[in-house]
């Protein structure tokens, strides 16, 4: 085996009462791609942030290239040749690409020299790795895929020999993810070491040499990728057998619950995001909307949920119109039985500084069961939250904990529990399993199927093609704001992929 690029010995880390990493031992051979998987909140990001010096371990030792190395700050890590692409990007949004790249590695007190050098170096990196990005573009105007490139370039610019990527593909389209993996293989061929955190077991099988599994703060197993299977990994992660495919019966579509007609939506800059979209969703079926992120799905969802205004068109809920071009009131829609699980749970779905039990009923706080005359019935709210925590296996099982202290996957479950348990007639969900581990995905998928079998109408938007294909009874593909095709659940990945890339639409236009 190659010598270890990194060796961690006895790492412990606690955040208050949460023991995020306990006695971690791990060895990562030089020149390999090492996968790390584990449930939400297993401590993957924490461990890698310790290696990068962002957090400091309570105890334990770090060896880089077999030399004991004190990593107290990111500066120490950078000096030791470690670079990291964080789960939540660490970019200054109103800076240009170039400014972000040189930040902290400016070279001299005056900027001009550093910027010129960076521009040349960037050009070289772009050529070598196919990481094209406009050096003078402002970050906030770049798509997430490009922002991630900037993060990778940042690490390479600092001469990283060891690159850590924390869930890099959560925000990428399949094509972008493939490109990323090509780059990772190139880095490996150059002798660099890559650590890859992901929830997607398929990616683990495709690119890694070894994989470590974390559970509740410890490493429970390390395997050679070639000698393991997806099933084994899933079981190691969750501690029980996981159903990796969705089991469902024939749909029994009934009356139309939600009807969208000729809907057109523009964004704040006046760009048409949804153009002339029409479709129906019936009781007892799941309609999936596939598409590469940014093709209007988000805006469509928001418009139906009443939080974004349409330019023209109409939406009928149970045959009665929603005032989508005027003052649609999300609260009223909720009363009419429309539940919405937003794509962006951090900004739209939750108030992070609130306690879990408060978020678990937010938006339904006018319900009689949560009220005690004019006052909130705190006891009832907490009891209800505890029930949901039980049923949805939300961890830690503490309804008084601040929502910000739950891991991403568990936050998602809080939102899902709130919306689904209200027994809505129509459920619209965006990215229900983004950043969620396999065990939770299995559970969420089961819940969605149960809703459908219970005669509810479900509209599902997801950039995960697998998810769309395994859950939907009908699949609509959106490209450039329009629905460019409808397929059954038996459509192949290739067929949908072409539609998503706008291939058929373009041919038809010619």
């Amino acid at each position, binding site marked *: 085996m190659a010598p270890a690029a990194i060796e961690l010995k006895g790492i412990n880390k606690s*955040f*208050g009462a949460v023991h995020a990493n306990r006695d971690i031992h791990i060895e990562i051979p030089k020149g390999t791609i090492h996968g790390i998987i584990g449930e939400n909140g297993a401590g993957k990001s924490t461990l890698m942030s310790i290696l*990068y010096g*962002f*957090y400091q371990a309570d105890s334990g030792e770090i060896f880089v290239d077999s030399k004991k190395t004190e990593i107290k*700050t*990111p*500066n120490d*890590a*950078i000096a030791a040749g470690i670079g*990291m692409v*964080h789960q939540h990007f*660490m*970019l*200054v*949004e*109103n*800076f240009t690409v170039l*400014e*972000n790249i*040189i*930040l*902290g*590695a*400016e070279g*001299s*007190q*005056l*900027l*001009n020299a*550093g910027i010129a050098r960076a521009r040349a170096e960037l050009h070289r990196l772009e050529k070598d790795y196919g990481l094209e990005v406009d050096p003078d573009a402002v970050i906030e105007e770049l798509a997430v895929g490009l922002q991630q490139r900037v993060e990778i370039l*940042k690490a390479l610019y600092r001469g990283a020999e060891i690159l850590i990527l924390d869930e890099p593909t959560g925000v990428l389209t399949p094509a972008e993810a493939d490109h990323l993996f090509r780059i990772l293989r190139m880095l490996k061929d150059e002798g660099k070491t890559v650590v890859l955190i992901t929830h997607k077991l398929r990616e683990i099988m495709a690119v890694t040499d070894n994989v470590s599994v974390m559970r509740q703060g410890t490493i429970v197993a390390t395997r050679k990728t070639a000698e393991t299977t997806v099933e084994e990994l899933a079981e190691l992660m969750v501690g029980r057998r996981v159903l990796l495919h969705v089991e469902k019966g024939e749909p029994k579509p009934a009356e139309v619950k939600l009807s969208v007609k000729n809907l057109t939506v523009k964004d704040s800059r006046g760009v048409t995001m949804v153009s002339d979209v029409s479709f129906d969703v019936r009781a007892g079926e799941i309609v999936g909307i596939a598409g590469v992120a940014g093709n209007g799905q988000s805006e469509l969802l928001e418009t139906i949920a009443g939080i974004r205004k349409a330019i023209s068109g109409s939406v009928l809920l149970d045959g009665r119109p929603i005032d989508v071009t005027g003052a649609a009131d999300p609260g009223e829609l909720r009363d009419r039985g429309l539940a919405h699980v937003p794509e962006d749970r951090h900004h739209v779905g939750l108030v992070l500084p609130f306690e879990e039990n408060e978020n678990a009923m937010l938006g339904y706080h006018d319900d009689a069961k949560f009220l005690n005359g004019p006052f909130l019935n705190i006891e009832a709210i907490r009891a209800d939250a505890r029930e949901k925590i039980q049923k949805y296996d939300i961890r830690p099982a503490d309804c008084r904990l*601040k929502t*910000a*202290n739950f891991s991403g996957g568990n936050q998602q479950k809080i939102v899902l529990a709130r919306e689904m348990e209200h027994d809505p007639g129509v459920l619209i969900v965006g990215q229900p399993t983004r950043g969620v581990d396999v065990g939770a995905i299995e559970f969420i998928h089961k819940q969605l199927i149960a809703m459908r079998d219970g005669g509810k109408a479900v509209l599902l938007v997801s950039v995960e093609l697998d998810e769309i294909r395994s859950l939907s009874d009908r699949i609509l593909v959106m490209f450039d704001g329009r629905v460019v095709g409808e397929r059954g659940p038996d459509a192949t990945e290739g067929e949908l992929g072409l539609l998503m890339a706008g291939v058929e639409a373009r041919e038809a236009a010619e």
Partner: protein
Amino acid sequence: MDTLVQLLDATVRVSVPLLLACLAGLYSERSGVFDIGLEGKMLAGAFAGAAAAAAFGSAWIGLSAAILVAVFLALVHGFASITHRGNQIVSGVAINFIAAGSTIILGQAWFRQGGRTPSLAGDARFQTIDLPGAAAVSDVPVLGPIYSDIISGHSILVYFAFFMVPFTWWALFRTRFGLRLRAVGENPAAVDTAGISVTWLRYRAVIITGILTGVAGAYLSVAQNAGFVKDMTAGKGFIALAALIFAKWKPVPAMFACLLFGFLEASSIRFQGMDWPLVGRVPVQLINALPFVLTVILLAGFIGRAIPPKAGGVAYVKER
């Protein structure tokens, strides 16, 4: 013509404390530390400056004392809001109270002149400087008076204040420190992961704020006036904050905003009690309120949205 020249000359003089305070706030707020306490630091600086100048008979010692005291208060603000992650508004307000109270108490205890410091003269006060050739060109029409009356004939602190405008621009946009300063006010986590200490960077910004507010205070009591009078900042720290928002946290617009507010103040003094055609006598309170009214009106739509540094006002917390 004479009236206009006098008015503009006065504008320059009253703009200077605004400008210094505004630039002071710019450094702090660009780093993500909001500072309501500009007013207090200026006031404390003015008192310390006048007291030291009176005691030692030197304007320069007065200036040093002003800077020292203002930097001390700035460090208190930094300690509360950077190190201890306290509420920046509360800390700033507290500093204003401390400054307002302690200058009166100490002034009375030391000098017994009802909160005033002894009147400064000679070397104890910054004298005006005549720029070369000012007298020679003063008869040239238009340009002459502009040079000799408006540009020439101010104290060194005035030139320092205006020099700080291009300097701040240069520091902010052309140096490594400036890049990091702007970054830490937008996204401290990005700065942290780039291997730079967020704490030290913000402390440096806060210290610069202290220095500039100290100079502003010294200007008030040791240059523009010949001594300290209680409450002599009279809300200038807050007008400077308004100018900062108005200028969208940029140095050159900050100068123009301060000149505009300075012009309004100079006019209110100049035209006090004057009868205007049609409207008659305008109450001085109305004119004094103009900078604030103007800020509200202009911010409400005329200059577009003023977007503050994104991380402004919140302490950087890495581990909850």
